C-alpha cells in the first residue's frame, strides 16, 4: 500500500504508549496494532478524529502517501 501510517512516530513524539492511546480513543490494542503495522484496509473518520485529538496532530502527520511504494490495489 502506498499509504504509510506514521502512528508510531507520533506516539514517540508525544511520548505516549500504544495501550494508553488505544484506551483513550476507545479501540482495542489489537486494532491499534493493525493500524500501526499498516495492515488496516480503512480508517473511520471517528477514529482518525480521536487519534488527532489525543495526539494533538493533523491527519497528515499520521498518514503519508509515498509514490515509490508499490500499491497492491
Amino acid at each position: 500500500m502506498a499509504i504509510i501510517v506514521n502512528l508510531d512516530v507520533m506516539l514517540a513524539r508525544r511520548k505516549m504508549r500504544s495501550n494508553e492511546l488505544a484506551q483513550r480513543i476507545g479501540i482495542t490494542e489489537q486494532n491499534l496494532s493493525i493500524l500501526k503495522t499498516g495492515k488496516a484496509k480503512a480508517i473511520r473518520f471517528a477514529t482518525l478524529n480521536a487519534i488527532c485529538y489525543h495526539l494533538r496532530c493533523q491527519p497528515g502527520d499520521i498518514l503519508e502517501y509515498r509514490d515509490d511504494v508499490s500499491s497492491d490495489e
Partner: protein
Amino acid sequence: MGNHNIQRISRRFRFLFRGMAIAAPLLTLAYWLCFNQLPVGLRPLQPYEITDLSWFSAMLAFLASLLPLCVAVFGLLTLSRLFLLYEKGVYFSMKNVELFKCLGLALLFWVPASVFYNSLLSVIVSASNPVGERLLVVSFRYEELAFLLMGGVVILISWIMDEGRKLEDEQAHTI
C-alpha cells in the same frame, strides 16, 4: 434472529446431517439385504419391473448404489461441517465458502452418479433374465434436473458468500 438461535438450530442440523451420513450406508445395506421382503411400494421406481433378487444380485446392487451413496454421504458431511462453523459463530470465512463449493459440487456430481447407478442397476437386476430380456436403461429424470439446478444455485451462492467474506474481512480491518 439472534446468534444464540442460529447456534442452537445449527447444532441440531449438524447432529441431523451427521446422523444421516452414518445411517445412510447402513440403511442402504439393510435395504438391499432385505430387498425381497420389501413391499412393492418401497422398491426403486424404475421404468421396468424388478422381481425378487438373488443374494448375489442384491450385493451387486448394493455395490452399485455405493456410487451415489458416497456422493450423498460427502454432501451430508459437508453440511455437517458447515453447520459446525455456524454453531461456532463463523459465517463468512474462507472455510464457509469452500464448504458451499463442495456442497454445490456434491449436488452436481450426484447427477452422473445417479444416472450411472440407475443404468448399472438395470443391468444387475435383469442379468439373470433370458437372452433378449436383459436390459440397459439409461434415464435422465426430473430428479436429476432438480439436482443439477440446485448444484448450480449453491455454487452461485458460494461465490456470493466469497463476496460476503471479503466484506467481512474489510470490516475486520477497518479501524
